[in-house]
């Protein structure tokens, strides 16, 4: 049973008989603020980064900045999980001074940047460094377009590799 159903339900008077199979949760340090479970390699790779950007001190940029909000980080983690593609490296995570978060890929002549302003309030942009094409869109809960952009970025790498160009 999912953790969500267990936690939402007020009572577990009827408990699943396979509850004892509970997954093994890896040890995390007492100072670690976030934990991801049953995650893709991307999320696992980004766990420490998520931990770092949600733990930033107030004024971390020298001004009136705040750490990335836990809610933004949780939404970003969900989005990253949806987009996971084993043949694409994990994105960079960049904190915003106002508690927001940016997910970025800069590869194969493409710049893809995804601004998580709050859950379900997302702005995404793609810049094609070869053609100069720039696309910017607002997104809510459907990220099919981002998956397509990543696919294009991956295809571009294949094209560049064939042409003998640098791919990173």
């Amino acid at each position, binding site marked *: 049973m999912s953790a969500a159903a267990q936690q939402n*339900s007020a009572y577990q008077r009827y408990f699943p008989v396979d509850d004892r199979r509970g997954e093994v949760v890896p040890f*995390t340090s007492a100072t670690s603020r976030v934990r991801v479970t049953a995650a893709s390699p991307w999320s696992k790779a980004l766990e420490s980064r998520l931990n770092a950007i949600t733990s930033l001190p107030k004024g971390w940029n020298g001004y009136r900045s705040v750490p990335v909000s836990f809610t933004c980080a949780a939404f970003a983690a969900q989005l990253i*999980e949806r987009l996971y593609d084993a043949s694409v490296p994990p994105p960079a995570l960049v904190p915003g001074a106002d508690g927001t978060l940016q997910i970025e890929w800069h590869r194969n002549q493409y710049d893809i940047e995804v601004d998580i302003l709050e859950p379900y309030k997302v702005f995404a942009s793609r810049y094609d460094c070869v053609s100069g094409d720039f696309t910017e869109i607002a997104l809510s809960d459907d990220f099919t377009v981002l998956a397509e952009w990543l696919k294009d970025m991956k295809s571009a790498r294949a094209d560049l590799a064939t042409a003998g160009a640098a791919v990173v």
Partner: protein
Amino acid sequence: MSRPENLPDFSSPPLDELVMGVQFVPLAGYTVVAAQDIWNLFRDEFPGLEQQPPIPPQFEAFGGWSPQPSFSFQFNVQLPSPRLWFVSEDGNHLIQFQHDRLMLNWRRINGEGIYPRFENIVERFASHLVKLGDQIQSAFGQKLEISQSEVSYINVIRVESYAEVGRWIEGAGALYGDSEIIASNSAKVLHRGGDTMARMHNELHSAMSGDMSHKAIRMALTVRGKPQTSEITSAIEFIRFGREAIVNEFAALTTKYAHEAWGRK
């Protein structure tokens, strides 16, 4: 609002618990001290108080390649603001509140309690949300901005043996007829008018009663997603949409034998 006409209806459904809830923009500056004022909003009806670990944020995202139904993202340390249960005198109703959620549960206690029906429960929930919205506006100067709604129906079907599952759940006999345990999770995306609306989670498990006296099949159906706007009316509309989807799915997944046993009208 009355029950939709064509919705399957049962006189004695095996419903054990109904949960409806919203997730909202976290209250800035919320502390446990403010929790007292929140409880006071509901205390006449919900005099009991219990403390539970907080539920981490959950979001439904669509598109992409990698569905991970059991993926979770949690705070590794106890949040300063726990989840509070405000419990009714009879224990059948409870409100769950934390700094970014409000939920309302109806549940059977020891097999007792007459299901008050969805329409009554959702109206109560809407009024609870209005009360909460007014309170956080006055106490925090913040609007109640709802980012997600959900509704869950948790059904418990008592059985002598799990081999009976095929009698109650369509097609389950072939899959689980001689199984020692049953454990199935699935999810599907719900659309309306061509738009992606929500995700429905279906969990089917073999279960034991807490006193180990009998076996049961536990079927939990949950619809979760983003309402069209952050307003209370939109959240309630989403919950109604989810309820219709769940009841139709429940009727489709269960057998004619089960429908007769539960008094399908």
